[in-house]
């Protein structure tokens, strides 16, 4: 009895202390309130709606009035082979993106550092950064202007050289390459910023000492610059892996999204979900695929974070 009383008293004291601390922090809590409401309204409120993935959605009855059908929506997309096709495309594209992104960004950053003229470097850096600032809609327009068969810039050049014009918008074959190139075109300026900053952070005395010791340019890159970039590269690669099932919807949609001939072979999860939601109003299928994607993404981030915690504890997210 006495022991319990002491325990109760401790709990009460703890509660009082928490209450007091909450009261002391009331202004800070109030300052967080708008953001809390924002996340509740737009991030947490949609969560119960995931239930639509488990029902045969009926517009009039609403999500929770519709008939529960268990995993049938998942079975449907899995058995039709759609799920596997979408997953494969999304992951393959992301793998290629992740590898090439970092390869090209590191190369660009290193070469940028080799450029001695400050004005030249500044101007070219600014030019390379431009594609980052434009909307994906405009990216679609730019690509169309260059590649379309009637008025495209590429075909004008080919024709003026006496070659056969290409009809790229009727032929799906080259699009995985085109999408990858456009992605690199748009993201390299942005991606190289981090690496360029990391190179700038290398102790200049180390580089100078190596030069005095007779290291040539290649040796300097190979033995000093690359090793010091390693942690940054590893961390960025790992975090990119965390997002491996998340596709760049805007890019794919604006390049090929409304052309069935082109999108079929490069279809990614986001495009399927978008079409199912907006064009077909098939909310149950869309939500099933979306939930599947969210779960894999969630597991990926947890796994990656676990690895980061072991490799570079300072960088782990939680």
């Amino acid at each position, binding site marked *: 009895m006495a022991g319990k009383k002491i325990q109760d008293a401790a709990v009460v004291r703890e509660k009082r202390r928490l209450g007091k601390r909450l009261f002391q922090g009331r202004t*800070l809590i109030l300052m967080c309130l708008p953001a809390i409401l924002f996340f509740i309204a737009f991030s947490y409120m949609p969560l119960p709606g995931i239930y*639509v993935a488990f029902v045969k959605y009926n517009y009039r009855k609403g999500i929770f009035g519709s008939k529960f059908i268990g995993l049938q929506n998942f079975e449907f997309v899995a058995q039709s082979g759609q799920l596997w096709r979408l997953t494969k495309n999304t992951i393959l594209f992301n793998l290629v993106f992740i590898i090439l992104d970092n390869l090209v960004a590191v190369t660009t950053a290193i070469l940028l550092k080799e450029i001695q003229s400050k004005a030249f470097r500044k101007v070219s850096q600014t030019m390379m950064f431009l594609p980052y600032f434009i909307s994906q809609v*405009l990216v679609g327009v730019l690509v169309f202007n260059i590649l379309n068969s009637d008025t495209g810039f590429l075909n004008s050049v080919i024709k003026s050289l006496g070659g056969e014009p290409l009809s790229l918008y009727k032929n799906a074959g080259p699009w995985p390459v085109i999408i990858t190139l456009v992605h690199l075109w748009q993201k390299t300026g942005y991606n190289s910023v981090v690496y360029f900053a990391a190179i700038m952070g290398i102790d200049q005395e180390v580089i100078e000492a190596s030069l005095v010791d007779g290291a040539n340019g290649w040796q300097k890159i190979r033995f000093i610059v690359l090793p010091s970039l390693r942690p940054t590269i590893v961390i960025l690669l790992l975090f990119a892996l965390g997002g491996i099932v998340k596709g760049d919807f805007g890019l794919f949609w604006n390049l090929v999204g409304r052309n069935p001939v082109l999108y079929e072979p490069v279809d990614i999860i986001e495009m399927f979900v978008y079409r199912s939601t907006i064009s077909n109003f098939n909310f149950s299928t869309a939500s099933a695929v979306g939930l599947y994607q969210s779960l894999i993404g969630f597991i990926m981030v947890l796994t990656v974070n676990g690895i980061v915690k072991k490799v570079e504890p300072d960088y782990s997210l939680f």
Partner: protein
Amino acid sequence: MAKKNKNDSMDSAPKVKLGTADYIIRGIGYVFISIFAILCILPFLIILASSFETEANIVAKGVTIWPREFTTRAYEMVFKGGTIWKSYGLTIIITVLGTVIGLFITSMMGYALQRKDFVLKNVLSFFVYFTSLFQAGLAPYYLLMTQTYHLDNSYLAILLPLLTSSWVIILMKNFVKSIPYEITESGKIDGAGDFMIFLKLILPMLTPALATVGLFLALGYWNEWYQDSLFLQQKEVVMLQYRLYKIVNEASSLKDSVAGQFVDYSDLPSESLKMATAMMTTGPIIFLYPFVQRYFIGGITVGAVKG
């Protein structure tokens, strides 16, 4: 910035004789960077030139990097009816409103979340971070927005969902971290409340962070087309990028696909009109970004890893 300059001056400092390998790498650097930089702006030169080209020339000879015949007809068509100005007005109002409100929301929470003595620090940090870990997905979001909130065909469907995000809050939190806690403490000693400390002491020191986060938010609003495509399909006046999206897609996807052969597209928007619209919707960004890009660079380096 100061650090960068120091390094720059040191680049030229070593009095070491350069060997062949160094010159080759340097040469590759100049060539690669030049070509890549030109490729980055070439598509823009093409739409700029083609927007001043006659429609007949584009159809007959293709787009160009220099107008063969100079005309402003396409721009006259863009301005005809004046709805583009309404789109401009809408885009500017939503961008300004969203950025200002979003900055306020983001910076208040960013400040609170890094206060060591804040009782809900960890709880709320997780609350925010979880939203980037696990999402409901498009379909539940769409149903909520249209059937529970009834935000379809409302401009609030653009303004509200882009106000903040876990990424910008974490970015802001990382910026606030660089302000010593002593500042907050000195305010406390003077008897100031937390909000006053934030408003009078912290906010003025956060100017570069506010510029960076504000510019990320503003860019997101200006380039918005996705929420438009979900919720504003019936609206006449839409955000600029969605306007471009609509003009482009009425024609292009049909034109080059097989189905397009059966469609009469003589009345579809002309090529030069598309270019002129593209220039009008993106022009402000192209003119402004060289002056503000350093804030983005700052944000990318601060937010790159933990974000």
